């Protein structure tokens, strides 16, 4: 594209962008909305559209695994109904709680006043048993989002659903069909029992640890010296390179639109049509790797924000993220939308087909990956001697690092901390890394570096200060936190209303954490500090350090946490308090 001729004059462009952001009433709505209401196909969960909604949270008997179990649902469905709002509208949602415990609904990624955010204990007092709460706010954005309970572990039990906000301005891409693909993980277990089990035996689900047989194979393939050195390195850290998921397919049944893989949901298309798939990861603890064999995926939005379209074969979606993807199946045949768990312990799927009853086979699960020392920001050279303990008391000064990346400093609160089992040494942003298990798989995999927002943040100020927080945890004790401090022991992060700050997150654990800031956007930066994409949930893989900018223009008390539900419950959360 020719830059000189296609560029808007700056003034016009900026006005247009702000106009979109503020949602000025634009004409021509009827025109573009006409073709695309394919959401209400036979199988799709109910769609509730409009300005006024009545929602009810309650217990619902379900049978997902072949055994009777009890879910907590919104309006009796799992996932909850798809809510369809329109940018600029004032929406009213009366949420009734029929449970015997307090409940709450949080509108994930939606900008709203703090008392509408739905985090009991921060934004309001929660919805008492038998009580209700009236949420009312003006919708100032558009795109694909979701909602879920923010009370206790109810999200795991079924309180989640998709949220679509139709824009006032036409969207910069065309499509003929529009489907939500809500990915999630289900267990018949009471989520509190699952949490307690993690405290007792955090590796309960890790049935993929390396065995004596694996050692013999490695010794044969890589040589005995290398195999021993590798086992020594991991043994010295008292960790396992197979720890990719705390809870996996051993416990979970993976769902897409509330359906198991063997009973999958079908979305219809006519060959040649452009199908928009709105992927939402509503799972409590599962990263999914999604692809549609035989089709290219054009990613057009991330976390509800339109991006420069990027064509890929596959993408990883962290819990709480959303991606809008357009596909164009040309032939009269079925396709499987295949979503395998990051640790390859299972998958969810839906079918896209020209007619009901058609089905395409699922591909085999990919090979399970092993974490490497590089994955954790340790560098393979240093670890090959296996002399470092990787503990919280590690003396960095005594080690020679043959790397150019500077040694990462760590907060003093991590030193000697019983709830910090490792520290990364030389983390980098690694935005161009497809992620563990997706490297060099022969497919073009979406990376954060591929995400470029179409919309420039209104606030182009340089951040006036940087807040560095380290994601920390102890796998065995199953305690998680920031800087070695869990939520209940931590002071709020205080922001001044109107300031622009840079959050830098350093992952000092061996797990990936999708970090979600309520109430405000997280403007992800690239490695050079340039704006990349606007998100509500930024995933931080082990061994990485990633930065995003935040404009503190939302007064109040906001949750800031890892969206792995059990990590949040175990303390990986902070209050971010924006004050005048």
């Amino acid at each position, binding site marked *: 594209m020719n830059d000189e001729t296609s560029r808007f004059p*700056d003034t016009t462009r900026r006005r247009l962008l702000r106009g979109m952001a503020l949602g000025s009433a634009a004409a021509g709505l009827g025109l573009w909305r006409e073709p695309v209401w394919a959401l209400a196909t036979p199988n799709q969960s109910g769609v509730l559209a409009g300005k006024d909604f009545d929602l009810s949270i309650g217990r619902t008997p379900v049978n997902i695994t072949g055994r009777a179990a009890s879910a907590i649902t919104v309006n009796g469905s799992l996932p909850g109904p798809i809510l369809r709002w329109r940018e600029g509208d004032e929406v009213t949602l009366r949420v009734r709680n029929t449970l015997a415990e307090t409940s709450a609904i949080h509108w994930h990624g939606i900008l709203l006043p703090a008392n509408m955010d739905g985090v009991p*204990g921060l934004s309001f007092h929660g919805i008492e048993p038998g009580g209700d709460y009236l949420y009312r706010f003006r919708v100032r954005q558009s795109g694909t989002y979701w909602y879920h309970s923010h009370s206790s572990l109810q999200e795991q039990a079924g309180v989640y659903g998709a949220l679509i906000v139709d824009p006032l301005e036409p969207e910069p891409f065309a499509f003929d069909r529009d489907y939500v693909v809500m990915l999630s993980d289900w267990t018949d277990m009471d989520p509190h029992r699952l949490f307690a089990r993690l405290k007792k035996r955090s590796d309960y689900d890790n049935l993929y640890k390396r065995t004596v047989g694996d050692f013999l194979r490695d010794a044969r393939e890589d040589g005995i010296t290398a195999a021993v050195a590798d086992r020594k390195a991991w043994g010295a850290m008292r960790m396992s390179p197979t720890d990719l998921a705390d809870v996996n397919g051993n416990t979970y049944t993976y769902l897409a639109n509330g359906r198991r893989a063997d009973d999958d949901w079908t979305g219809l298309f006519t060959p040649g049509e452009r199908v928009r798939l709105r992927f939402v990861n509503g799972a409590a603890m599962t990263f999914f790797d999604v692809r549609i064999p035989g089709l290219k995926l054009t990613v057009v939005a991330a976390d509800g924000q339109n991006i420069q379209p990027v064509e890929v074969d596959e993408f990883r979606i962290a819990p709480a993220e959303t991606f809008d993807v357009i596909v164009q199946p040309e032939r009269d045949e079925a396709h499987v939308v295949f979503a395998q768990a990051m640790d390859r312990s299972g998958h969810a799927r839906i079918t896209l087909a020209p007619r009901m009853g058609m089905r395409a086979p699922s591909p085999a699960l990919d090979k399970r990956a092993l974490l490497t020392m590089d994955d954790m920001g340790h560098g393979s050279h240093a670890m090959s001697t296996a002399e470092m303990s990787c503990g919280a008391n590690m003396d960095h000064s005594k080690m020679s690092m043959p790397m150019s990346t500077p040694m990462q400093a760590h907060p003093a609160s991590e030193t000697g901390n019983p709830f910090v089992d490792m520290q990364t040494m030389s983390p980098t942003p690694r935005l161009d890394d497809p992620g563990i298990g997706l490297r060099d798989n022969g497919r073009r995999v979406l990376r954060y570096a591929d995400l470029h927002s179409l919309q420039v943040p209104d606030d182009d100020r340089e951040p006036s200060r940087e807040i560095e927080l380290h994601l920390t945890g102890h796998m065995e004790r199953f305690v998680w936190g920031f800087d070695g401090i869990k939520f209940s022991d931590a002071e709020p992060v205080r922001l001044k209303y109107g300031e622009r700050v840079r959050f830098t997150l350093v992952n000092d654990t061996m797990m990936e954490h999708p970090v979600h800031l309520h109430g405000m956007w997280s403007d992800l930066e690239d490695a050079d500090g340039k704006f990349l994409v606007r998100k509500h949930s930024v995933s931080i893989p082990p061994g990485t350090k990633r930065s995003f900018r935040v404009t503190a223009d939302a*007064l109040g008390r906001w949750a800031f946490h890892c969206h792995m539900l059990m990590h949040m419950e175990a303390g990986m959360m902070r209050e971010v308090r924006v004050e005048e």
Partner: protein
Amino acid sequence: MRGALAIGLLLCMQSAFAQDHSQHAMPPSSPTTTDEHAQHREHTTGDDAPGDYRSPVLTDADRAAAFPDLHGHDMSAHMDDDPFVWMVMADRFEWQQGDAVAWEGTAWFGHDRGRLWLRSEGERERNHGTEANIEALWGEPVNAWWDVLAGVRHDISNERLGHHGQDWLAIGVQGLAPYKFEVQATVYIGEGGQSMLQAEVEYELLLTNKLILQPRIEATALGRNDAVRGIGSGLGEVDAGLRLRYEVRREVAPYIGIERAVRFGKTADFARAPGDDAHETRWVAGVRFWF
């Protein structure tokens, strides 16, 4: 109608991409500091200077909505990041060759920063009656891998061997040593100035993820001879065991194994006196379980 729509969309798409192009789509190879500055200058030629962003002016309604009355609630009522948790585990619960029953169990109750530990170890044998102890200790984590525990131990009386129960004060450590050795070491101070050290190391070798070989070694040393209990001063006894278990599920694992007891010095003499061997090897079969 549709055609017009498509054209409209296309135009819109183009313009949107164009915007983006001027803002972000720098080829990865080309961004230099000059380019970066150029982009910034470009911003300044617009209607606003960079850094002029102002957050909306707040009203009293905004303030009220931002800090609502929580009716006395705080987060603790809705999220418990330090719940009360408990666990009961029988690491060994077994029949031993020679018609003996032996066990080693642990239970803990509490929170992340402190737990009450109950531990018990013992065996019941036809000729010797029951040799058993129970401990109650308070344990706190001191660093990433180690807990320190302190409490009391009671050895139950044994009529057949003719000794009464004995009480000890106990202080010890337990944790995971490098290379994932599970270690437990406790010093006991008993009545009449008797002292004892017990240390135990376990390891888990995964033949498969369900078939697990567990070597275990336990050593006992005493400060003074104890003729009644048949233990001499210094290193008295070392028990080494090898158990092969199959985890039917994580919580339940039947096993078979072999255990060898080696007695040293005075302890060996005490053992020989009634005609027993100083060393003993026994087959064992049992079940490991927890809940």
